[in-house]
């Protein structure tokens, strides 16, 4: 009896908390959880006139089709390939850049470099896509330079293999500066007496970098590296969508662009949802695994 009254008093006192969070909860329910239920569409033949609930069930038809239809298997492979190349390049370049920047003494120069390399991160792929199609086109400034030194023009955005190359390199170009921040922050945290001790022991700067600096970065590298595993099927929709064209669909089309074209442009809602479900499910498993690993290695927690 007393217990019951106590808990109702507590509930009354906590009511404002529940009310405060209610709008966010409603938004998440409608725009995040309802679409998750909508994934059931992958097992139905969605017809607009029948609606979501009355469209007939077809079981694994679309998922089966996805794994046998050459276009979709190619798209899954492209996604995996481009995303893995990006993960690898985006892991290595910022570390190297941070190590090089760490050697600079002149503060003004160091800050100016930092200010310039963070910039592309903040521009959208619409803007950067516009810039890149201009400078990488057949008559663009890059090909002008190439022909200036006697090389043949390169179809950066018109040839499949070059397209993958362009996508990976331009993604590194956009993000490496911003990704450097976390390593630079870790570098400022290193105890200087470690370097002095190494110096006394006769270590060259290269040895100091290998045996003092790098080990200090290892925890951060492990956390960043494991967390990036969750992106193994995120090849970068915004970027590809703003750079690709029918010439490079074979090598450059990825799950997200494929889902957009097949689903929203051609109206095959159920098949597109099935492909999307595949991506969501694989990503879910990898993200959960990545968080667990990051927690193990680096004591990293999101909450």
């Amino acid at each position, binding site marked *: 009896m007393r217990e019951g009254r106590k808990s109702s008093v507590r509930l009354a006192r906590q009511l404002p908390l529940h009310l405060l969070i209610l709008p*966010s909860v409603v938004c*998440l329910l409608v725009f995040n959880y309802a679409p998750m239920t909508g994934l059931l569409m992958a097992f139905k033949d969605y017809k607009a006139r029948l609606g979501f609930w009355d469209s007939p069930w077809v079981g694994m038809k679309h998922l089966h089709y996805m794994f046998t239809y050459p276009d979709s298997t190619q798209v899954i492979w492209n996604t995996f390939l481009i995303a893995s190349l990006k993960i690898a390049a985006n892991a290595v370049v910022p570390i190297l850049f941070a190590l090089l920047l760490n050697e600079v003494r002149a503060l003004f120069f160091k800050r100016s470099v930092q200010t310039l390399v963070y910039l592309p991160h903040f521009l959208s792929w619409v803007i950067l896509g*516009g810039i890149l*199609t201009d400078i990488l086109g057949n008559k663009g400034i890059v090909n002008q330079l190439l022909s200036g030194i006697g090389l043949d023009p390169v179809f950066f955005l018109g040839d499949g293999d070059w397209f993958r190359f362009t996508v990976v390199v331009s993604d590194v170009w956009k993000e490496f500066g911003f990704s450097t*921040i976390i390593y630079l922050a870790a570098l400022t945290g290193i105890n200087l007496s470690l370097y002095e001790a190494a110096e006394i022991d006769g270590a060259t700067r290269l040895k100091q970098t290998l045996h003092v600096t790098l080990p200090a970065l290892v925890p951060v590298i492990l956390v960043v590296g494991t967390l990036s595993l969750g992106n193994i099927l995120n090849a970068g929709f915004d970027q590809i969508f703003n750079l690709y064209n029918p010439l490079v669909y074979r090598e450059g089309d990825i799950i997200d662009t494929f889902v957009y074209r097949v689903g929203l442009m051609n109206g095959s809602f159920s098949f597109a949802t099935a492909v999307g479900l595949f991506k969501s499910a694989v990503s879910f498993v990898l993200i959960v695994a990545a968080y667990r690993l990051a927690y193990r290695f680096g004591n990293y927690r999101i909450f």
Partner: protein
Amino acid sequence: MYRNTLGYRWFSGFNTALLAAIAVLCILPLIHVAAVSFSSSSAAMANQVYFWPVGFSAEAYARTLANPLFLRSLLLSAERTVAGTALSMILAVSAAFVLSRSFAGRSFYSWFFVFTMLFNGGLIPTYLVVTKLELTNTLWALILPSAVNVYNTILMMQFFKAIPKELEEAAYIDGAGYMRSLTRIYLPLSLPSLATLSLFAMVWHWNSWFDGLIYMTDYRQYPLATFLQTIIQSGDMRNTNIDPSQLQILSERTVRSSQILIGALPILLVYPFFAAVFRARVDDGRR
């Protein structure tokens, strides 16, 4: 000292040159497009422009800004940025405040939020929800689906958690409830973080283009980023029946470049602030 060895001095000189080259490479493309946008149309078409305008002319800007479609999309972008940022910040602050308390429902709510970061319904089901709610061609379609930003909410929650409990306990003794301690203690103390997160939300809204592309069936309702996207991908104009002669002007090289630059301008204006924030973060040696 290793700094005085010949080898290190060679390395140092080489390193400085390399870093300078990389840094310049990060803005050179932008400078090139800016130079094209201020050049005469003929010089741009003949590919004579490198990193400085040839035959200086601001005509491309005059034509871009005289285009009612462009101005309308500029206005829509401003609207969605202001409304979207306000809404998402209000939601983030209130949810973060609740999640920073310890009470019975906290763990349930936390998982309810975090799960959306791990799993999502994907494009098609989300699109169908928004269309079923008849949000198509309204501003709501651009601000409601992304209104709750779980990542920002978590960041805000961590700021709130770092505020000493004693302050709130003192206020509680003085008779303050949850709302009063939120508005009188937590919000004033976290103004700098609020400003930073708001700026991030604004940049996000200004840069968003895909929601406009799929939820606005009428191209006159496109926000600027979406408008630019359709112009840049001028091959992809099937669902926007802009009349062809107009399209020709819009896709001319100088005009295109001027549109790109105007689209990037707000970001370039707030950029010094971001650069300062992140340099400070590096200097503090924390994440």
